[in-house]
């Protein structure tokens, strides 16, 4: 494996991690607000909070890791994406800022406030939608690149079927992943009422998820046939993803092996995510930037990889400790601690 491929794989892996943990968080925020407005049992929201409280900051770091890492490994991305994304990027930052701070205010600070809870729920869907711009423009066709300027073509972006189908996929995925996780978590917490509710949500959102995937395939084939054909050439990966999806939904439908069902969801997204990423290579930004011409110098690459390994040695045991205390400690999950 070349350094370039290693670098992008590590970053892609972290973005995948963010995709999973942030989807849980974003969706939970939305359900929290929705349940509150529709006067569903209040205990269910306690359950959501018990999961989210200790981990929201950790979730955020996954994102920071990705964007610091990508300009570290591929400094040219700072130039292209940085120049193009000033407006959408700033909007994402503002949404993230509102979400993070109001979460903390609502949970630790003042009493449960309806406005905070609304902001928290709404940003949960808007943030993933705004992030998709990055993936969308990476397919090419939305930038005007001249010698000293990179400009985003808003007209092309907003009128593209592809870009809207990515937005739809992002939103339904958030709701689906989150509901699948909370089904599992509620079951562990021994809360049958919450379990039934989230199971219902999970099943409800499963069909739109697949429909959105089909839509993406279709619109991508129009938008970037080159990428589409390399996706077809590894079509088995996406087929595998579909199998994981069917198995996960089947398990939740029968209400059995919910932990396994969530692992299958992770595999479903993992295969699709890496399939998408691998077929996108070598481009970081089609057709201007590949991983080879945008890569950092070799000395820095080695230093970053060494730092990465050192960092993992520090983090894995710590994450393990946190998961043992909060996720896999039945008494904590059940609210007895």
């Amino acid at each position, binding site marked *: 494996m070349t350094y370039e491929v290693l670098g992008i794989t590590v970053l892609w892996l972290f973005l995948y991690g963010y995709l999973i943990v942030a989807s849980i968080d974003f969706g939970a925020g939305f359900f929290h607000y929705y349940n509150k407005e529709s006067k569903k049992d209040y205990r269910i929201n306690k359950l959501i909070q018990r999961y989210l*409280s*200790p*981990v929201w*900051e*950790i979730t*955020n*770091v996954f*994102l*920071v890791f990705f*964007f*610091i*890492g990508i*300009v*570290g*490994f591929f*400094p*040219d991305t*700072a*130039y*292209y*994406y*940085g*120049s193009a994304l*000033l*407006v959408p*990027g*700033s909007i994402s*930052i*503002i949404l*993230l*800022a*509102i979400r*993070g*701070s*109001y979460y*903390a*205010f609502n949970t*630790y*600070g*003042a009493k449960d406030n309806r406005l905070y809870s609304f902001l928290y729920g709404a940003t949960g869907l808007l943030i993933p939608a705004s992030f998709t711009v990055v993936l969308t423009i990476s397919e090419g066709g939305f930038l005007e690149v001249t010698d*000293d*300027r990179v*400009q985003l073509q808003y007209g092309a972006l907003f009128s593209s079927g592809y870009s809207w189908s990515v937005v739809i996929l992002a939103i339904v995925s958030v709701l689906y992943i989150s509901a699948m996780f909370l089904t599992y978590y509620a079951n562990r917490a021994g809360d049958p009422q919450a379990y039934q509710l989230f199971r219902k949500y999970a099943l409800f959102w499963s069909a739109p998820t697949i429909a959105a995937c089909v839509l993406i395939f279709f619109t991508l084939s129009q938008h970037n046939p080159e990428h589409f054909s390399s996706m077809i050439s590894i079509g088995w990966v996406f087929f595998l993803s579909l199998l994981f999806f069917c198995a996960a939904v089947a398990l939740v439908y029968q209400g059995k092996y919910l932990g396994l069902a969530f692992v299958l969801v992770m595999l479903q997204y993992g295969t699709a995510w890496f399939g998408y990423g691998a077929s996108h290579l070598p481009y970081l930004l089609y057709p201007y930037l590949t991983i080879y011409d945008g890569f*950092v*110098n070799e*000395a*820095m690459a080695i*230093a*970053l990889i060494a*730092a990465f390994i050192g*960092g993992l040695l*520090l*983090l894995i045991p*710590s*994450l393990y*400790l*946190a998961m043992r*205390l*909060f996720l896999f400690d039945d008494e904590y999950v059940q609210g007895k*601690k």
Partner: protein
Amino acid sequence: MFEADPVMLSRILTGLTLAFHVIFATLGVGVPIMIALAEWMGIRRNDPHYTMLARRWARGFVITVAVGVVTGTAIGLQLSLLWPNFMQVAGQVIALPMFMEVFAFFFEAIFLGIYLYTWDRFKSKVRHFLLIIPVILGATASAFFITTVNAFMNTPQGFELVDGVMRNIQPLEAMFNPATPTKTAHVIITCYLTSAFILAMIAAWKLFRGNDHAYHKKGLHLSMVAAFIFSIGTVLIGDLSGKFLAEYQPEKLAAAEWHFETETEAPLVLGGVLNDEGEVEYALEIPYALSILAYGTPGAEVEGLNETPEDLWPPLWVHYAFDLMVFIGMYLTFISGAYLAIYKFKRHLLYNRPLLFGIIAGGPLAFVAIQSGWFYAEVGRQPWILNGLMKTAEGATQADHVGLMLILFILLYLFLGISTVLVLRGMFKKKPAEQELYERGIETRGDSA
């Protein structure tokens, strides 16, 4: 006209975000150490007042950390959005510490989560105390790493520039550049100092308002002792920072001191104004003091601004920022020293109102010093973004709409700033310390020292 200059707007937006972030970052680095001290005292002396201090400080801390995290995320992304050219070039050399900073955050975030949610979960109190240690290490390490990036911008090294391209790159040499030792040490210790003063301010405020509960007295004492030690450290390291500047960035020091001609036995200029001929008026001059600040001896020769072409001078108003910081440094040392002297020799006068008032003023003043110190350090580097190599104007984005983004961010920070204050007030007003001590069965009502 405003819309026309993305460089100026980018600078304003960067400065704004950093100035807002650094408020929370400072507390993020400094408060964990104070929490640790309080919790440790609580265990050592078996005194629930200290444990309660640690608990309540930690609860407020969560709020400031949250705002620190979101504004930090903002600045991290903004660096690429507003300075794409700078990041593209400098990223080749300086990615390592930024990357390591993220690991430090990660480490801190994990243990902070654990610390906050395990107050009563372990049988042994020491075990819970141990969980704050990684939080301190993570926060201080992240301050260290990010400050090395800033140090690099002041004294870039660890590469060769061939036709505008960086070659032969040595990441560690870039990270440990000449500015690193003084800069990181000064930043970290001032975070500690400021946090200690903010906590002292809260306790002093309670006492000032006539609440003489032992809980507040202990809080005041603990934070004053810590603040005194940190303030001595701050002044000593600040002095070393001056010596660093004299050697590596003489034009920055000269601008701060309005030192126009290279000379020996240079005096230190305090305050004053510049008249139309560019001469200093109404200033207080301390003979030899600049030579001492710069080299430690009264006879040393100090480089003046005459050695630098005028178009490369930093703005001369940084003089005031520098003076303000140094003055506040002296003040904080003095007031915490005064507290300790009275504590030792005239204890019955300890809670006198002028002293309490002086301590209360120290909290906001410490933040003024942080801000003026950073404005001095950053503006004093102008016109360079990478000292001597890349001008600030070359690093900025060419994108449209920077002005609009600036307005959005101003609104965001207003919103966040006001909410933070309201939430913190609400949180502690709702449940004063006395009530919480009572509820936890630590003491009965009306009990006080």
